[in-house]
């Protein structure tokens, strides 16, 4: 065994690591090499954030199979907690982001612990309730969210420009975490829970702990994203953060890209962000309807979304191995 291998954890394959480092390096260097317009620069920043949220949504929705329509609650709670802390201006901005993530994760745990014992559509319905209840309560809680008019943050143009890299590093961490979770003990436990929760418990999987932990982690990541999002706009308001379409967008990104695959939801997020720009510009009245249509088509014809298409093409290219 060559010596360099021992510095890489067992679960991380060298090929994945190489692709990963290359992608991160290219994206890191991109603004220095290519003269990106401010619009493109900002779109990429937002894309990084949403890819990260889609990957994190997938931990609970894809790995554990518990489809959450309430992740906007964590996005918003994390965002507002971070915004309040940012307004104090006592610590470097990443401290409020982390704080927002912790608060969001704790909030996820608080509603998730009792509701995660529900499964399938029953859990999903509960998450819709949680999301909407959170939106209503926090819209009226002026002391925390500033009510419907929201909160303004100190404007920092330099920070907004450099958010590109913060969002990129954040995404890199989340992507590594996705891969690590999928290949860890926790990931295998979650996949077994998704398949058969009772059989999983009967071979020793601590179902409650695994689900609680992963919802905490997923919520924390989405909460940090909410905080970065608040920094990006220097303004944050409840209807944008907590809206039901926000929750739906997390689900859509994952479904388009491939629920349960490690990186599929990231691909889905890219498609979602691009498609959204195009559809809003071209068909502002129709765009939600077109999303619905897309969702139906994916579920009917390719339940693993883009990832499923990629697997299919890969099998075609190796006709002798995948002929099932």
């Amino acid at each position, binding site marked *: 065994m060559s010596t360099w291998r021992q510095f890489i954890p067992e679960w991380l394959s060298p090929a994945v690591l190489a692709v990963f480092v290359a992608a991160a390096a290219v994206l890191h260097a991109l603004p220095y090499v290519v003269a990106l317009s401010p619009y493109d620069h900002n779109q990429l920043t937002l894309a990084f954030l949403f890819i990260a949220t889609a990957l994190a949504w997938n931990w609970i929705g894809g790995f554990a199979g518990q489809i959450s329509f309430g992740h906007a609650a964590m996005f918003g709670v994390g965002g507002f907690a971070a915004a309040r802390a940012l307004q104090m201006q006592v610590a470097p901005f990443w401290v409020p982001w982390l704080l927002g993530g912790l608060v969001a994760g704790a909030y996820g745990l608080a509603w998730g612990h009792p509701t995660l014992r529900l499964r399938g559509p029953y859990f999903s319905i509960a998450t819709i309730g949680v999301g909407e209840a959170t939106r209503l309560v926090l819209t009226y809680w002026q002391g925390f969210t500033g009510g419907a008019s929201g909160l303004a943050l100190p404007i920092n143009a330099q920070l907004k420009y450099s958010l590109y890299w913060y969002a990129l590093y954040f995404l890199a961490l989340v992507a590594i975490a996705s891969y690590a979770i999928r290949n860890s003990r926790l990931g*295998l436990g979650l*996949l*077994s829970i998704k398949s058969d929760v009772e059989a999983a418990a009967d071979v020793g999987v601590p179902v409650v702990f695994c689900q609680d932990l992963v919802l905490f982690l997923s919520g924390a990541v989405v909460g940090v994203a909410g905080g970065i999002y608040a920094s990006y706009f220097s303004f944050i308001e409840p209807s944008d953060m907590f809206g039901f379409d926000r929750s739906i967008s997390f689900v859509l990104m994952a479904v388009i890209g491939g629920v349960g695959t490690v990186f599929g939801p990231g691909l889905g997020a890219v498609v979602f962000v691009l498609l959204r720009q195009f559809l809003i510009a071209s068909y502002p009245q129709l765009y939600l309807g077109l999303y619905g249509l897309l969702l139906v088509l994916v579920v009917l014809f390719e339940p693993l979304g883009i990832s499923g298409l990629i697997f299919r093409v890969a099998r075609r290219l190796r006709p002798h191995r995948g002929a099932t």
Partner: protein
Amino acid sequence: MTLLRVENVSKSFGGLKAVDQVSLELRKGEILGIIGPNGAGKTTLFSIIAGSMPASAGAVFLGERRLSGLRANGVVAAGVVRTHQIVRPFTNLTVLENVTVGAMFGSPSTRHNPRARAHEELAFVGLAERAHHLPAGLTLVARKRLELARALATGPKVLLLDEVIAGVNPVEAIEMTKLIRVIRDQRGISIIMIEHILAALMSVSDRVVVLDYGKKIAEGKPAEVVRDAKVITAYLGEEHAKSNGGIRGPAAEKSP
């Protein structure tokens, strides 16, 4: 030496008493058979021992340790694991990964090298070359072996087997019976097994407990139990109990 003790366990579903004041003991290194007509409460009793459902009354002990009140994963960590009558493989995981789940989450002393241990268990039950297949491609008997390997990977002291022989052909049944003996003889795991196929159960069990309508109606050596009038009545009706032939032959092999 008593390893597992079930003390006056009852379970009610509404007005129905599925398990009614059942007590039994499993000695170390023993294979204990449980028989009884359909609906006798056998599987319910397993579910209670394994922590899948709470008892309405009574308690289960492993040595001095009380298992009642633990969740299923706690019971597995303590060293008691069950298999399912209707096999429940994780269909989204490969055969190897299925067994790895057991190896990773089983009793804490056996969690090292889960993947290597999963390979060993697959080889032990004779599924080594199927390691990278999905369970959907396996035959019923292979899926039963998978269920067994997954349970064994948790490193149990007590194995609860729920009809691992039922539904397989006679040759496979003999193989499975051999495997069960090997599990006990070579690995020192004590076993409680539910089985409808009496011939198979009788040949492998040291002792047999008979349940009927949730109650324990007989207990003893296999040969004694099948001559017990109450057992014959439960299985074949009173007419047969009077003619006193005992349960054997083809009639015993059919599910009552």
